[in-house]
């Protein structure tokens, strides 16, 4: 087990980014994902990078932790870069190794695309790093509210989401516990032929399912006992409310977008 570390797992904090309304964060990030594709020049990329880095530093989460969380995607970023180096043949030939040419266009293209990729992943991971799963679900429920008109089960969807998110850490703990118990009984999850390792999963999965079903049953019972009947007429414990800081961030973000448009092609 990797000690239960999840990529982008919420890190409690008091920073400005933490305190923003989750809807603000989701909206800004949603549009950021689009405008990343508009950048096409050194200056416009710099504007985006500056915005992403400024947001990252504002969270006050240790940089090494964020970068470590990105480990699995580093590979993809590097891969993208190399792919572009190889397939692009525009611009001047920079290096020529026995007929295998690397063009300046490839370097620029590769750099631009991997940068895009990096910015996308960095900014989206900021959402989950600074927002509790419950806040995210509340925000999604609120933002999908208009869909209720067309009988879309918004509340049920949000409930399903928050229950699953709530139980992810529990399930991870349970997995850790049971795999340790079975390892103590001589199961080897790490070495041995593939067939043996697949067989080793059964003593892990069966207890996990058993306990998940038991938990689900208990939860349903507890909810019923407390009079849960669904979304209709149910009041909220946590009311989402836009504050001054949210409007300031929106204004700032619009300024970034305008600057981006202004600096394209420079």
């Amino acid at each position: 087990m990797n000690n239960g570390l999840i990529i982008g797992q919420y890190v409690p904090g008091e920073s400005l980014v933490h305190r923003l309304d989750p809807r603000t964060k989701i909206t800004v990030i949603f549009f950021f994902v689009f405008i990343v594709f508009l950048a096409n020049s050194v200056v416009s990329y710099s504007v985006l990078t500056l915005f992403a880095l400024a947001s990252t530093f504002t969270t006050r989460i240790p940089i090494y932790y964020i970068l470590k969380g990105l480990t699995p995607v580093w590979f993809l970023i590097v891969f993208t870069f190399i792919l572009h180096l190889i397939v692009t043949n525009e611009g001047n030939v920079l290096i020529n190794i026995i007929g295998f040419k690397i063009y300046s266009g490839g370097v620029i293209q590769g750099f631009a695309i991997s940068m895009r990729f990096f910015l996308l992943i960095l900014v989206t991971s900021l959402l989950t790093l600074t927002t509790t799963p419950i806040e995210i679900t509340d925000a999604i429920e609120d933002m999908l509210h208009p869909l209720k008109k067309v009988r879309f089960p918004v509340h049920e969807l949000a409930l399903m989401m928050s229950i699953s998110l709530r139980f992810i850490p529990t399930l991870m703990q349970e997995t850790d516990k049971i795999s340790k118990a079975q390892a103590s009984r001589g199961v080897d999850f790490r070495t041995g032929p593939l067939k043996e390792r697949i067989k080793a999963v059964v003593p892990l999965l069966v207890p996990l399912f058993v306990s998940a079903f038991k938990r689900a049953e208990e939860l349903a019972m507890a909810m019923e006992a407390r009079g849960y009947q669904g979304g209709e007429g149910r009041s909220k414990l946590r009311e989402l409310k836009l504050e001054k800081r949210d409007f300031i961030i929106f204004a700032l973000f619009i300024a970034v977008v305008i600057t981006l448009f202004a600096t394209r092609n420079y």
Partner: protein
Amino acid sequence: MDITFNHVSYIYQANTPFAHKAIDDLSFHIPSGSFTAVVGHTGSGKSTLIQHLNGLIRPSDGEVSIGDYRLTNNAKPADMKELRSRVGVVFQYPEHQLFEETVKKDIAFGPENFGVASEEIDKRISRITADVGLNEEQLERSPFDLSGGQMRRVAIAGVLAVQPEVLVLDEPTAGLDPRGQHEMMEMFHNLHEQQRLTTILVTHSMEDAVRYADHVIILNNGTKYMEGKPEDVLSRKEALQRVQLDVPEMVQFLDAFEKKFGKKIPFRRQSAAAIASEIRDRLREGDRYE
């Protein structure tokens, strides 16, 4: 096997903002053949400690040795499986680990993994089922049809069937009815004596620590708070209360007796009956020797 902890620390999720030191510079020695009780408030690091004993986790710092096996941050025994066959661990709520179709298969799972021959396994099963208080008829049933207490017995039988030399028990009686608790502890104690096991019992029950252990380690916030003979450690009321622990009932009684009668009867892990006769003797003699 002797067990030694030498300045052991363990950090969960090291190098993340969630890093948490669960064990801090812990040193102690458990001689082979002893019955050691590890006592401490919830979260004091008891379960973390015992996971070192069969190499499930390795110390972040310091060294653990179990017999000839050594565990440090970057060294582990070449044959981990062998270590695990010699150190049996009964986890908290071990019934959560059951998965087989029948009770018998589940008990046989451990010994099979460790390569015990099947006739030998059958022999062990019939002996152990009796020991843990299951009956033959239950062997062919699904473990999931049993009651919680019976499932616990199956899980414990599964660990005992490996016949470890060191038996580690993490709150093995938590959640059982009082009679079940007593039976189970008596069984562990008998096994300890008959098979000359080295037993490590994690417990909340001061009564169990006093009754069965010959060595007590008290943990507080991941560090060793006290260690020694049960009669010495468990009679120190103030010290124990500082870490939210109670003294055993017998000590409470002797304490109250001293307050009311002004006479001190020293605590030597006597049984209730022994204390009663001691009091009777004193009353008869009119305390001539006080």
